[in-house]
Every structure is written in C-alpha cells, then in structure tokens.
C-alpha cells in the first residue's frame, strides 16, 4: 500500500457504502421524476394543442364558406369579427392572426397586430406544413395553425392561433405536488431499504461488489414500479379532464355538421354516415372509448365504440356531452367517453427510458461500490483505484453531450430558423478531435512536469469552464471557442490520468492499470450518452451542457483527494515529424494506418458521433434515441473487446480481425443506407460496435509486429505515440468527411460512400498485409 493513503477510522468504509446507496437512489428518484413529469407535460400539451388545431380547422372552414374561396382575405370585411368570434369560443385562445406568404399579418382579432411581421420560424413552419395543420412554440408562446388555399392551390393566407398554456401550468402545478410526494415516499423508502441491506452486507468481513450493487439496486427497481403506478394515477387525474375538454371541442365540430345536415332538410334519424364520422374521430383520437348520439329521450341513435347503458345520464367524470340544439330546443346530445387507460399507453412509451435509467443506475452503483471498496483503507491497489472515480465523472461529462452536440451546433449556427450547413455542424467536433490528437503528447509531457494531480485538477477546471461557456454560447464562433477549451480539458485529463496509472501501477502492473483506466472510460461511455439524450430531450441542450460543467466540478473532489506528487522533467520524448516520416516509410505500417486504422476512426467519429444523432433527428426521433444508440455501441465494446482480444493469437488471426472488423463496420454503414429506418440504425450501430471491437486490440498488436525494427530503435512509446497520433487524425477527418458527404449526397449517399470505402480499405489492407506476412515470418525465424 502506498504510504500516502489517508488513514481512515474504522467504519468509514461502511459509511461510504451507505452514501453510495443513497446516491444511487437519489439518481433513480431524480431521473424517474424528471421523465414522468416531462411525459405528463408532453401528454397534456398534445391534448391542448389538438384542441387548438381543431379550432383552427373549424375557423378555416367557416372562412372558406364565408368567402367562397375568392381572391384575397383582405377583401373579406367580416374577417376581424369572425376571428374575434372564434377566439372567444375557445377559452385557450389569446389571439388569432392571419398572415400572408411574406409573414405580414393581414388580419387579426387584435387590430393593432395588422401590418406586423410574424417571426421567421412561424412563417417557415407554416410553409413547410403545406395543407396540414401545424403547431410550434415561438418566442411569444405556442401557436397552432392551418393554411387557406384557392381552388388551384395558391395560399391565400395562414391562420395562426396563439394560445396560452394557463391550463397546462395549472394542471402541472397540481401534478407536481403529487409526483414529488410520491417520489419522496417511494424513493425514501427505497433508500432506507438499500442502506439497511448495504449496511448489513458491509459489516460482514469481505463484501464482494455484486451483492452490494444488487442491494443498492433492488429496492430502487421496486420503488420505480410503485412510483410508476402512482404516477399513472396522477396522469389520469390531469389528463382525463383535459381529454374531455378536447372531446367537447371535437364534438362541437360534429354537432355543427349535424346542424347543417338538418338544415338541408334531413331528419336527425335519417342522417347517413354519422357512425362512420364517429369512427374516424376515434381513429384519430385513441383516447375516445366511444362516441354516441342520443335523442331527447336518451335513446342511442348513432354510436361507435362500446356504449355503456347509462350513456344518457350525465356522469361527469371522463365524459364530454355536447347538446344538439335547434332554435332553442334540445333534440339530442353527443356523448364522448374517455378511455382512462389511454394514459397507460402514454406511460408505456417511457419503458425504454426507464430501462436505460436502471441500466445506468446499475453501472453507476457498481462503479461507486468499486470506488468505495477500492479506495478503502487497506484495499489493494488503493492509489491506483482512486483515479477511477474522477476519470469516470469527467469523461461522463463529455459523453453526456454526445447525442445532442450536432443538433446544438446546428441550432446555434443556423439563423432565422434555417438549419446550418452539415459541414459547419461537423466543424466543432473535428476541432475537438484535432486539439485532443495534436495536443495529447504535449499534454502528457506537461502533466509529467507539473505533477499528474495538478494537471488533472487543471484539466477538470478548464473543462468545467468550457462546458459552462458552451451552455451559454449564443453563436457558432463562441461555441467553437468554448468547445476548444473542453477539448483541452479532455486532452489534459486523458493524458494525465494515463500517466497517473502508469506511475502508480509500475512496470509490471501496467496492463492492470490500463484496465482500471479503460474500464472507467467504458463505464462513462455506457452511462453518458443515454442519460445525456434523455436530459437534452427533457431539460434542453443548454441544461445538459450546464450539467456537464457541474460534473467536471464534481470530478474535482476526488482529484483533490489524490496523493500529491511532485512533478519531474518529462522522460518521454516528443514525437517529432522525423519519427513520423520514418515510421510511415515502413510500407506495411503505412498500409495498416492509412487503410485500416484511420478509416476505422473516420467511420467511428463521422458516423456514430456525427451522422447518427443527425439522422435520428431526421427520422423524427428524440435525442434520447440517439443517446441509446451511442450507449449500445459502448455496451458492445465493453462486452466484445475482451472476447475479441483473446482471439488474436497469430499474425494471420490478428490481420483477419482487423480487416474483418473494418469490413463488418462497412457492412453496418451500408445496412443503414439500405434500410432507411430504425432497423437500419440498429444494424448500423450493432455492426459498427462489433467491427470496432474485433479490430481494436488486434490492431495495436499488429503495429508492434510490423514495426519491430522501429520499436528496437526508438522504443515502444515513441512508436505507439506516433501510431495513436495518426489514428486520431482519423477522428479529426471523420466529422469533416461525413459533413461534406452529407451536404452533397444526403444521408443515404453518405452511408453508401462511407460503407463502400470501408469495404475497399479492408480489402486493400488485407491483401497487401497478407502478402507482407511471408518475409515477416522469415525475418522472425532468422532472429
């Protein structure tokens, strides 16, 4: 045991483990509450939006009737009165604007709005929506609308219905109280249970990691289930009345049609196609259990869906009743029944997210238990294990932002609602990779000089500033500058962490030391993107960056607790251009680098971190979906890399793993081109993970084999340093190549070109290096 470990009183280990149980429960409680709340808010605002859209449709119809699709809306002098009448008929509406293709307001329920310009985003959304109703949340609140067209398709105008989210806010306030109460009870109990269990386990002499992890997690899983049931009740309470409001809005449309039909001289009972109109309503609004039209005596005349016997009695809850009135006399009613189980469907959408949260909680718990155990006084490798928690926390910060970074760059770089060019979106990612690649050797030597601990602290601080700046950035250039700081921080922590491991582990423990370091990074790769995606969807991209900054600060605590070591003059030499050129003169090394190592990185960064998030958004899924895909890649690496490493026993096998891995990666990318949907994305990420996992260890080993002479001349570190440097240039090129392809040939084209290129590269490197094998074996046998 190194002498500088803090002496800790007995029982400190137990206290640490109890803290772990608490942290894991807190994490679960926070994530579950955030997810549930966001889902409820989404469900409510969708219902409210549907009400407004239905009002917009009604308005468009009545304007169409009023003017018989003439020429210009401005000529319709009854328009302002009509707008005002419609505004008053729906309590959600604040005002109704009518604007032309240039975005100028030509009529409004508020006279002072006429002549003003609507925001560019509103205009663009309205134009893109074409003939369909649209909805968008602009700077001055949510707006829904629909366009009005002439008989030959020219736009006469767009209706924009501005509505307030008062009802949403009121419903959410009530729901918040319930959810927070439920969460406090469920997760409080869970925390208590897991602390008791952990305490009992920890007091036994040797406490293995998995039982402790399970003790942290099982109560959490139970709490999640109970909380899920409880939140379903809160959902029903808030959503069912809102759904009834919406049904009433739909009902007034249907009642209007029945009025028109009766006005045309047909009796209520003789009407045709009423049940079909009801069926269509139910198809578009799955929360409707039944729709029925009853006469004045309460007898059902038309119906769709299972109508209960007591339909004529106004039971209030979960029902909407719209009276059918003619000249002051009520001749019947429309009754809409809300199916309370529709909220179950809404919650079912959350299952994937909850599963991800539990998986992350699992990794987190095991990581924390390992930290608590590994750094406990008397633990073997105590000093070495201490690096794991800060590296995990710091890398987690960067990984959080992966699924949302491309979209964030696109949003900041775009103007007036227009998306930025794909190449511009790739630029910050490329710059990040460039700084990490080029800076790495220098960061390594600098951290050696000032001491690893101080370098780690400096790196995490720089990273925190970078993430905080990124969260607040207002424009592309600002963001690029802050991202450069993030890159510097990342590079420093990476290099210093690696150096720390080497120094603590010593020559013999090198492999084990690296396993600790890589394990921390891998755990972060699994946890970060998935949680980051969920957070970006629910809290926003800026909040996700802010959280990353907080994580950097959090990483400072375990860094400060690291043993302080004096710095010393760097022993490793800088990689000069000369040594790079000498290495590249080795043709076999050059082929391996140019046709296998660099393409693999181009595919990894260009596809997984750049194209996949953008493509997921293009397919209409959220950032959480992108995060899950990136997490899948991380999981595959964790599981497959050790398995593949065991397979590379001979040169031939290693070569087969490298070229085969690249080929599999290429096939995955081609699969995404062939299947333009989620199945294609799954195939892409699955095969990409498999391919990279197959190649990664074998490739490193091949370098040593192909550069025997260079290693003998310059040492292992110089050769590998140069190799990593070249490989990282692939990281830099990745987003640039992918961005250039995306802007010229689109997603399908970019996937096709990248996949096919990978296949060709795999073939070239396989053929060339397989022939190189003969002289190599001869040389080997000569020595």
């Amino acid at each position: 045991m190194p002498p500088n470990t803090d002496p800790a009183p007995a029982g400190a280990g137990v206290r640490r483990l109890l803290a772990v149980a608490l942290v894991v429960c807190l994490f679960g409680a926070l994530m579950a509450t955030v997810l549930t709340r966001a889902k409820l808010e989404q469900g409510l605002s969708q219902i409210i939006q549907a009400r407004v859209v239905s009002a917009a449709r009604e308005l468009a119809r009545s304007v169409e009737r009023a003017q018989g699709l003439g020429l210009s809306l401005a000529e319709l002098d009854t328009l302002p009165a009509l707008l005002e009448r419609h505004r008053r008929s729906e309590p959600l509406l604040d005002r109704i604007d009518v604007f032309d293709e240039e975005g100028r307001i030509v009529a409004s329920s508020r006279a002072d709005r006429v002549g003003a310009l609507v925001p560019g985003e509103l205009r663009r959304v309205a134009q893109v929506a074409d003939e369909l109703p649209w909805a968008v949340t602009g700077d001055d609140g949510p707006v829904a609308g629909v366009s009005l067209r002439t008989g030959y398709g020219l736009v006469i105008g767009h209706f924009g219905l501005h509505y307030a989210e008062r009802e949403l806010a009121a419903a959410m306030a009530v729901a918040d109280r319930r959810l927070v109460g439920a969460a406090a009870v469920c997760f409080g109990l869970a925390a208590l249970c897991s602390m008791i269990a952990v305490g009992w386990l920890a007091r036994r002499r040797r406490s293995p990691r998995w039982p402790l992890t399970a003790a942290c997690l099982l109560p959490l899983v139970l709490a999640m289930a109970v909380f899920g049931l409880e939140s379903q009740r809160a959902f029903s309470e808030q959503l069912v009345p809102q759904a009834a409001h919406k049904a009433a809005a739909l009902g007034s449309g249907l009642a209007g049609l029945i009025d028109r039909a009766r006005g045309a001289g047909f009796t209520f009972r003789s009407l045709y196609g009423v049940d079909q109109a009801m069926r269509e309503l139910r198809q578009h609004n799955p929360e409707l259990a039944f729709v029925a039209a009853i006469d004045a005596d309460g007898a059902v005349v038309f119906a769709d869906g299972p109508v209960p016997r007591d339909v004529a009695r106004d039971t209030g809850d979960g029902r909407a009743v719209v009276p059918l009135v003619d000249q002051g006399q009520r001749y019947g009613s429309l009754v809409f029944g809300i199916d309370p189980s529709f909220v179950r469907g809404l919650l079912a959408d959350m299952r994937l997210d909850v599963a991800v949260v539990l998986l992350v909680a699992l990794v987190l718990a095991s990581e924390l238990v390992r930290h608590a155990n590994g750094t406990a006084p008397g633990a073997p490798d105590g000093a070495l294990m201490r690096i794991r928690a800060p590296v995990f926390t710091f890398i987690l910060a960067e990984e959080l932002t992966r699924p949302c970074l491309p979209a964030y760059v696109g949003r900041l770089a775009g103007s007036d609602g227009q998306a930025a060019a794909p190449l511009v979106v790739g630029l910050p990612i490329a710059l990040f990779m460039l700084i990490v690649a080029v800076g790495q050797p220098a960061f390594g030597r600098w951290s050696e000089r000032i001491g690893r601990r101080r370098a780690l602290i400096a790196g995490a601080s720089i990273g925190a500033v970078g993430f905080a700046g990124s969260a607040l950035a207002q424009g592309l250039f600002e963001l690029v500058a802050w991202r450069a700081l993030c890159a510097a921080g990342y590079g420093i922590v990476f290099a210093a962490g690696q150096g720390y491991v080497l120094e603590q582990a010593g020559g013999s423990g090198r492999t084990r030391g690296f396993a600790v370091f890589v394990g921390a990074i891998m755990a972060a790769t699994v946890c970060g993107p998935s949680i980051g995606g969920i957070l970006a969807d629910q809290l926003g991209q800026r909040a996700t960056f802010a959280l990353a900054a907080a994580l950097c600060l959090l990483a400072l605590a375990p860094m400060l607790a690291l043993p302080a070591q004096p710095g010393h003059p760097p022993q490793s030499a800088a990689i000069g251009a000369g040594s790079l050129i000498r290495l590249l003169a080795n043709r076999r090394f050059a082929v391996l680098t140019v046709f296998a190592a660099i393409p693999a990185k181009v595919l990894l960064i260009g596809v997984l971190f750049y194209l996949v998030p953008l493509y997921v958004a293009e397919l209409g899924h959220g950032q959480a979906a992108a995060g899950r895909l990136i997490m899948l890649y991380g999981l595959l690496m964790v599981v497959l890399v050790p398995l593949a490493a065991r397979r590379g026993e001979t040169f031939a096998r290693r070569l087969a793993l490298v070229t085969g891995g690249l080929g599999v990666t290429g096939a995955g990318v081609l699969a995404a081109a062939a299947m333009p949907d989620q199945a294609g994305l799954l195939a892409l990420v699955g095969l990409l993970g498999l391919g990279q996992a197959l190649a990664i260890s074998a490739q490193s080993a091949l370098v040593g084999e192909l550069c025997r002479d260079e290693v003998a001349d310059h040492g292992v570190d110089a050769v590998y340093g140069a190799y990593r440097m070249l490989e990282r240039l692939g990281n830099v090129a990745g987003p640039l190549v992918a961005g250039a392809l995306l802007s010229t040939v689109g997603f399908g084209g970019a996937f096709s070109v990248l996949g096919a290129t990978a296949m060709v590269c795999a073939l070239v490197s396989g053929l060339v290096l397989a022939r190189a094998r003969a002289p190599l074996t001869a040389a080997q046998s000569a020595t």
Partner: protein
Amino acid sequence: MNTRRRLILAAAAAAAWPALAAARAQRRLTISAVTFRGRTRVEDGFEAYLAARRVPADIRWHDIARDKARLPAIVEAIRRERPDLVYTWGTTVSLGVLGPYDGIDPARHLTDVPAVFTLVADPVGARLVPSMASPARALTGVTHMAPLDAQIRAMSSYRRFERLGLIYSPSEQNSRLVVAGIEALGRRNRFEVLTRPFPLDGDGRPDGAGAEQLVDALRQDGAEWLYLPPDSFLTTIAPRILARATEIGLPTFASTEALVRAGALTGVVSGYESVGQFTAFKAEQILIHGRSPASIPVETLTRFSLPVNLAVARRLGLPPPLAMFDYAELIDTDGGTR
C-alpha cells in the same frame, strides 16, 4: 411542324419575352377574349383576379353564340385589335381561333399572339397541345376535368356501389375515352360497368328518342349509380335523363357543372370562378412576369368542388354522408346555394 423547329420557336419566344414584358409593363395591355355562349362565371373569376392583382388590362369581348361560322370574322377582328394576349373559352372556340398544334393554318388561325385557353376538357385529345407539361407553342391554358379516379372515389364515398351504369354517345371521341377510363378503373377497383350507348341514326348522329328506356334498362340490370360523362349530346338532353333516373330512384353523378345544373344528384366539378382565376394567373405570368407561354404547363385545379342537389337527395331519400356536409357545395333548387 417537326420537333426541332418547334423547339427553336419555343426558344426564340422564351428569349424575346422578358424584354417585351418590361416594355409592356409601362402601358395598358389589351386582351382579346372569345367566348362560346356569352359570359360565364369563368369570365367573372378571370376579371376579378386581374383586378385584384392590379394588372392594367382592357378586355375586348367577342362571342360566337354557339355558332362556329362566326369564327373567321372574329379572328379577323382580333388581328386588327393587335392584342397582347388572346383568351379562348372551350374546345370549339380554342381550336377555331388557335388551331390544332399539328395543323395550324396562318390564314385561319392566330399565330403571332400569345394565348390562354380555358375550360377545354382534354387539350391533348383535342390536339391543342402535344403534351400538358410543355405546350411547345405560344399558348397555355387550364383544363377543368377532375381526374376520373377522384370522381369514382367521391361517388363511392357518397354511397358504395358494385355496379355503375353509363350512357354516352359513341360518336364522340371524348366520351369514348372517358368510358374506357372508367372501365379500366372498374377492373382495378372491382366494380362492374354497364354501358348503354345512344343508337346512331343514318348520318351517324346519336338519337336521344329512347333515352328514358336506356335509364330504365340500366336500373333493371342492377346499376346503383348512373354516371354522366362530359358528352355534348347527352348534355343537351340531360334534364330528361336525370328526371327519369330520379323518378326511378337511381342516383346520378355528373362529370361537368352543366350536368349538375341540369339536376344530377352530385358530381366532382371545377368551380368556374376558380377556373377563371387560374386562367388569369397564367395570363399574369405571361403579361407581367414575362414568361413564355410555351414554358407554362397546362394544368387543372388541385381542388374541385362537390356540389350536391339537396332537392334530388331528398327525393331519392339519400342524404349525403355526414362528413360530406363539411366540404360539399349544397345546392337547393328551392333556396339556392347554402
């Protein structure tokens, strides 16, 4: 005219237009319009659009009052007027003034003035233009026929059917084309098409004396709808046919507005005012924006109206399906349009 010469002419016209338009924007423009049966709502829509868009144009009206013999004199009169644009209404007038694209006679037809035609049911079949997408001569226009499959869809959403009855004049090419089109749709959508052509007299002209018997026969064969194609002869005796069909409880579906006005239950037709506006939109493209007519496609409306004769619906006891009250144009012979 061979293809190459046509292309050269089109290119020359395209090159000349912007300059001409710029020069013309300074002064008032003249449009010479020729109609077939006096002013219709198409002309209302045409004038209203030009006025709303402030196109400085004076329109000189000519009418042939259904008499083809008046065409040569009108063509001569237009030559003297030296208009900036010619407007022609219907197939007969458009062909008479502008000629078929493969048979232009400079003595009889106007060749040096850009033109817009309107209300031509089948401009390609009538040989006004070789294709809808590119007219390849200095004219363009608007056609008013709704696509056949849209008509069949509207019919079956009013009431589903398995057998469709059809009466037409075998002497009219346009009717024969529509019948063939409906039969093709019947094979695809699995409904039976029962056709009853008018008998032809010794001169090959259709004879409408037994029209009522044709309707009765279709009903007996099990027809659930009677479809009325855009047939000139049928249109002249439509009131008799429609009265008979309604009397024996056979719903009727019209392909043109004239047939709806004659008393069909419903149909898918172009609003004449919209047709006129769309024609004026194309005229504006030529006169103000300097586009060559040869480059402006011949188009039909993207929206059609669905008129329903409520009096007929009540007599048949067939109210329109509820959803149709949302978009149908309700016509009540007792109380006008609702």
